[in-house]
Every structure is written in structure tokens, then in C-alpha cells.
């Protein structure tokens, strides 16, 4: 094989690579669009009027995840399954956003931490790498951390909306999460940076709980929420 042929060969490989990336980018853009739409639906929980509508909003979001799963299914067809990490950069951002949205919906519905398995299912992907397009631990955890920050905002806004019980429940939930994260040895990577932010979310929620407690506002009938 001549040098020229060899480079032509490689050029072929590179072109194919670029085509794959182009295809991936297009589907990812659709996923981002869907993610923004789900977010808009869920954002309404921060509004004073939004609290009663949480179940409706969650149902609506659940429905919209159908589209997400369709796009995800399409994304999987764009590249060989065993080369997930070759192209990961393209979807990492949106995947973490989707993990956040799935975890957030789950939390709003049941006030528990949605497992990696459940999140993967909502998004329509696998958990185990060997089975194909999957939700890596790091991406799942990143999504959970985005949710934590959203919950600290929710704690603030639920007080504004007059719901004094929710902050305490969020506080318990976030504290458990925090304990979980403390078990991990993170590298100096984006996840670590995001995890550093969790402390501020915990702190903010603690402040809300404190504010309620010194005003005696947290003594409402909450037995039902004790979780």
C-alpha cells in the first residue's frame, strides 16, 4: 500500500467520523430542545400558584419524556454501541440535564431519590455500559446535583408560596444526599466542582429551616410527611 493510499484510507476514516458527529449533533440539538421544554413545564413549581399543580405538571413532563426517549432511540442508531465514550462529549451536557429532569420529576412525585436505574428508564437508556447507550455514574450524579440546587430554590419559593412544611422535608432529603456524596472520592473534575456547590445548597436550605423555626412556622401538621 502506498503512502498516498494509506492517507486516503485514513482520510476516509476521518470523514466517516465527522459524518457520525454531524448526525449526532443534530439529534442532540433535538434532545436539548426537548429538555428545555420539559424544564419550562417543571419551572412552574416555583410559582406561588404552581404548588397545587405539581401532579399535573409531573404528568405532563412524564408525557414529554416520550419524545426524549424517541430521540434517544434515534441517537443510538447513529454510532456503534461499543464506541460510546468516543462521542460522549456531544451528549454529555444534555444527558446530565435530562438526568436532572428525570430525578426532579421523580422527587416531585414521591419525594425520594430516583435511582440510576429509574432515571435511565425515564430517559430510555441503559444502566450497564455493556448493554449499550447508558447513563454513567458521573452523569447520573451530575444530574442529581443539579436537582439539589433546584431543590434549594424550591425550598425558598415554597416559603413564599406559604408552604412551610416542604423546606424541612427537602432539608432531610438533601442531608441524606450530602451524606451519600461524602462517601465518594472525586477527582478534580467538573463533578467535583458541582459537588462543591452542594454545600451551598445545603446551607441555603438550612437557613430557610432556621428562619421558619425561629418564627415557629414549621410546626404545622406534618406528621404525614415524616418519610
Amino acid at each position, binding site marked *: 500500500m502506498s503512502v498516498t493510499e494509506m492517507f486516503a484510507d485514513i482520510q476516509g476514516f476521518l470523514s466517516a467520523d465527522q459524518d457520525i458527529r454531524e448526525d449526532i449533533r443534530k439529534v442532540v440539538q433535538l434532545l436539548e430542545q426537548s429538555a428545555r421544554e420539559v424544564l419550562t413545564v417543571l419551572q412552574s413549581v416555583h410559582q406561588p400558584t404552581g404548588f397545587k399543580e405539581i401532579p399535573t405538571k409531573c404528568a405532563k413532563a412524564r408525557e414529554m419524556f416520550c419524545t426524549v426517549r424517541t430521540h434517544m432511540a434515534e441517537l443510538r442508531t447513529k454510532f456503534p454501541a461499543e464506541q460510546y465514550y468516543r462521542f460522549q462529549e456531544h451528549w454529555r451536557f444534555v444527558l446530565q440535564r435530562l438526568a436532572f429532569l428525570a430525578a426532579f420529576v421523580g422527587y416531585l412525585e414521591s419525594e425520594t431519590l430516583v435511582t440510576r436505574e429509574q432515571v435511565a428508564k425515564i430517559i430510555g437508556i441503559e444502566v450497564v455500559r455493556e448493554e449499550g447507550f447508558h447513563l454513567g455514574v458521573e452523569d447520573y450524579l451530575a444530574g442529581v446535583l443539579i436537582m439539589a440546587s433546584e431543590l434549594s430554590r424550591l425550598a425558598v419559593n415554597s416559603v413564599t408560596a406559604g408552604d412551610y412544611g416542604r423546606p424541612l422535608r427537602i432539608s432531610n432529603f438533601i*442531608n441524606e444526599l450530602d451524606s451519600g456524596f*461524602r462517601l465518594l472520592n472525586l477527582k478534580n473534575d467538573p463533578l467535583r466542582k458541582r459537588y462543591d456547590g452542594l454545600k451551598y445548597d445545603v446551607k441555603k436550605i438550612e437557613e430557610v429551616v432556621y428562619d421558619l423555626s425561629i418564627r415557629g412556622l414549621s410546626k404545622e401538621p406534618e406528621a404525614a410527611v415524616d418519610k
Partner: protein
Amino acid sequence: VQDLDTSANLSSSPVIAAFKVFQQELDTKHDKHERLVKISRDITIESKRTIFLLHRVTSVPDVESILKESDVKLDVVRQKIAQIAEELRGEDIYQFHRAFTAGIQEYVEAVSFQHYIRHRTLISLEEINASLVFPKTETVDSKESTGDTPAAPAEAAPALTFQVIPSDYLLGVADLTGELMRMCIGSVGNGDIDTPFQLSQFLRQVHDGFSYIGNTGPYEVSKKLHTLRQSLAKVEDACYALRVRGSEIPKHMLADVFASRDAMMDADEGVA
């Protein structure tokens, strides 16, 4: 034009003989450097894990058990440092300093973090170095010293020692401040309102210390000053917030508040 005779002569040439010696000297040095780099990487990783472990003290009831566990981990790190000391036996440590500085800085960060948690003071360079005295020949295999700091530098045998140099100490301490800031924010989140004030006092002292040194230290220190200042600001902000919110309860109500709050959280006792 290749001159075969000359080539043949080469093997007997004094020049070639000399270069064969040089080759050996250089290869030996490179090999040692490489071994040191690898040990240093191990030290970095293990030290970082120790730091993560230590951060659990703010959320866990049994501080002592975590400190014990960190002692074990740090002992492992010290065994690695003993390996460095072994490699450097009889060498000029500055010659290979670049190979292991990263690991040593990380160790300083970890050990000074542990020390702060235990004693609420800054560990001194002397204290660090005192714990890097290794009894002769047992360096690698012995792993029984799980105590506070390796007690005695062995009896008769001349001990192997490692000396952390001041700039590595400074750089490790500079990074320590970042961990202390994290600890402070974590404490607030866990409802511990004493630690933040203690930490802000301590960090202020360290900050003032660094600004006293200013740009007379190594360049790498100056680079970290900005981060240090930011960490201090975060800690000061946290204390400020605690003070401001504390202002809203009349003092005589304080006890009540905490009592009711504890009740509310279904807890029997609170560490105010």
C-alpha cells in the same frame, strides 16, 4: 562515506568508553526520576482520598473513628514517603524535587487538615518532618503504626528521614485553606455554628500570614493567593450570614428556639 575501520575502532576508543559511563549515569538518573514520579502519584491519590474521608467529620457523629481511619490512610502515605526517602538516600533532594513535589504538597495538605480537625491549630513544618522519620530497613513492610504520629524514631539503627522543604509546606498549606473553606460551608449546612467562626479566625490568620510573606515566596505561592483570598471571603460571608440571622431572635428566646427546633426535627439533642 562510511568509514568502516573507524567504526570498528570505536569500541576501543576512550571517548566511547567515557560515553558508555555517561549513558549509565544518565539512565540511572532517569530511572530514579521515573520511580519517584510514580510514587508521587500514589501519594497524591491516597492523600486526596484521605481529605475526602476527613470531610465526613462534619456530618458524622463519631469524629474519632474517622480520625483513626485517616491515621491508617496517612500511615500508608508515609510508607510511600519512606520509599522516596529510600530512593533519595545519599542524594541531593533538590535534584529530584520536581519528581515528587506534587505528592508531597498533597500530603502536607492532608496531614495539616487532619491536624486542624484534631487540634484546631496549624501543624508546623517541624511537626510534619518529625513524623517522617522511619526506622531503618522496616520502611516498606511494617504497617503497624496506627497511632497519632509515629512515636519514636526507632532505637539503634540510623533512621531514614524525609525533610519537606518550606516551599512545599507553604503550597500544601495554601491548598489546605480551600479544604477549610469547604469544611466551613459544610458545617453551616449541618447546623454547626461554632466551627465557622473558629474557621474564619484561623483562616484569617493564615491569610494574614501569606500576605505578610507576599511576593517574597515562590512564584507558585503567589498564584494561589487569589484563591486563598476567595476562600477567606466565602468563610467571612458565612459567618456574616450566621450573625445576621442570629440577630433576629431576642437573646432570651434563643434557648426556646433551639429546643423547639430540635423537637421539630425529631431529634433528642442538638449541638448548637
